[in-house]
């Protein structure tokens, strides 16, 4: 068993990054996730593992530093919160286009605009439908615990390199600020130059040797036919993710008449709602998507013929509910309940919404 600690979600992002052998973090302070860089600066990983930590002049600069370093085959990451992620949208699109691996953490706050520093899940569409320009998808993981904040940094880098694609950890202010027990992985070494050569030797900008062609990191292609082939290659990759990487948790769905679908901290609340509803004799289950892209549409489609209704519970105006409707395809009733502006609903509030939506 690994080392056990009581830690904040944001702090564990930093700890997990160092321990999994991350090469660099580039970021810019923004509430509610500033503890990520503060923790890194306090831990000074450049003295031990050699991990680089740099406070950039903006989120724009941060993501382009990540672009440069990721292009060199290094394991690099950044973190921010909603308005900062909007600024990074340019660089994220470029990274998706150039097929660069990286981990981006979004500890969401309420919007639009400067919005609020309180928790939110209003960036679901931004995270899962692109967010920047062009046809692209991120691999999106939604942690619902401090443990998952830790685990998804490790898994995130694995997926980023498996698919040569940016990975987003879509957390929210609750998970970022929450303190929980977490089991940490043991320190792993950063990749050696030889390992980078083995893993990314056919594309990374490590310096052109005489025995190979030059490597160019770019998303640019002037020839339309070639560019369409590039787009098709990306789409094929996203389809592979859909086939192979869907992750979700299913809680008490087997006998359920109604299934709630919720991710991140909303799922934590709904877990309690399941208990409250079942004490009242209503058979309620919960599907918690762990990957938001690829979305667990198959399991939702399977239950669509068995249940009387789905309730999407989100801290936003109803975004994921559209993906549920697509998966359900009209086969049963799909409803939404959510709060906005940084308000986190109580389990009872969700239970009441269930009763009201489905007239129990």
């Amino acid at each position: 068993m690994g080392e056990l600690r009581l830690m904040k979600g944001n702090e564990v992002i930093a700890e997990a990054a160092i321990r999994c052998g991350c090469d660099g973090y580039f970021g810019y302070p923004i509430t509610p996730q500033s503890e990520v860089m503060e923790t890194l600066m306090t831990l000074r990983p450049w003295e031990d593992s050699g991990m680089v930590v740099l406070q950039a002049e903006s989120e724009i600069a941060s993501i382009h530093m990540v672009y440069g370093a990721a292009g060199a085959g290094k394991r690099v990451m950044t973190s921010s919160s909603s308005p900062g992620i909007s600024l990074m949208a340019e660089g994220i699109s470029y990274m998706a286009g150039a097929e660069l691996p990286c981990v981006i953490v979004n500890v969401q706050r309420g919007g639009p605009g400067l919005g609020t520093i309180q928790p939110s899940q209003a960036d679901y569409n931004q995270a899962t439908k692109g967010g920047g320009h062009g046809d692209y998808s991120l691999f999106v993981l939604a942690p619902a615990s401090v443990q998952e904040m830790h685990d998804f940094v490790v898994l995130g880098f694995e997926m980023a390199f498996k698919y040569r694609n940016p990975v987003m950890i879509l957390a929210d202010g609750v998970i970022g600020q929450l303190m929980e027990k977490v089991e940490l992985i043991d320190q792993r070494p950063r990749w050696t130059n030889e390992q980078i050569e083995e893993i990314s030797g056919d594309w990374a900008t490590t310096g052109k040797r005489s025995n190979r062609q030059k490597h160019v990191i770019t998303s640019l292609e002037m020839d339309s036919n070639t560019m369409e082939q590039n787009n098709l290659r990306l789409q094929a990759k996203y389809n592979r993710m859909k086939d192979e990487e869907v992750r979700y948790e299913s809680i008490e769905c087997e006998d359920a008449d109604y299934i709630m679908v919720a991710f991140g901290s909303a799922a934590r609340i709904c877990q309690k709602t399941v208990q409250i509803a079942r004490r009242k004799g209503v058979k309620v289950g919960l599907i918690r998507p762990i990957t938001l892209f690829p979305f667990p549409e198959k399991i939702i489609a399977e239950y669509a013929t068995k249940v009387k209704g789905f309730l999407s519970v989100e801290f936003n105006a109803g975004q994921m509910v559209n993906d549920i409707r697509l998966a359900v395809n009209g086969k049963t009733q799909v409803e939404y309940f959510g709060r906005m502006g940084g308000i986190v609903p109580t389990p009872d509030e969700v239970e009441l919404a269930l009763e009201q939506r489905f007239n129990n």
Partner: protein
Amino acid sequence: MSVLTERINEIIKPENLVYAKSPLLNDDAMHYCPGCSHGVVHRLIAEVIEEMGIQEQTIGVSPVGCAVFAYNYIDIDWAEAAHGRAPAVATGIKRVMPEKYVFSYQGDGDLAAIGTAETLHAINRGENIVMIFINNAIYGMTGGQMAPTTLIGQITATTPNGRNADLNGYPLKITELIAQLPGAAYVTRQSVQTPAAVRKAKKAIRKAFEIQAKKIGTSFVEVVSTCSSGWKLTPVASNKWMEENMFPQYPLGDLKDSGRADADLYRIKG
């Protein structure tokens, strides 16, 4: 074989060779317009990298603008950056591979308009990189619009009556700004319109790359350049226009050559 070809082949012999194309420059036809300075500067960078023997250690960062395809011509590893972000991309590369040589190559719109923040902050951090700045006072790639360095009165696609300070502000002397930054090690302004100027510019680029190995801050080489297509002048007339109009505003020479400032000058007391 024609008489002419025979005669040429007689002349082209190793013993007659006084100058050769760097093997780092490939044989692709450059997309640059006749009279453009980019091609010359590309050649100088290729020659410097070749002569220093650092081809395997050098990573270039190309911009958005006419030089976006710089990666097509020089046989090294490249990252193509988003508009204005080359200094951030170069920072990322250099920070995770401090033993490599990293340079960015940007035009005036890229470096001094959309990327001003990235430019100033990379240099203010004293990133150990080389930054090459092509200043031709116009946006070439998009069809000749006003650049931050466009001169007052200069006609462009978006200043059809000439740049007006009341409306458009002033030509940005960003190199003078950069020379004030403590992180800058070497700041110089060059040109490539004559053989003598080309030799001086090459020396400056070589010096900039050598400074990178010393890790004493950012080296910045501006090349005051021509854009005959954007300026709507012949290549010869462009050189004359540049000498008469650009040089008084952007005087050639070194602006700083002292290495990164001593941090103690800026330290808190006590």
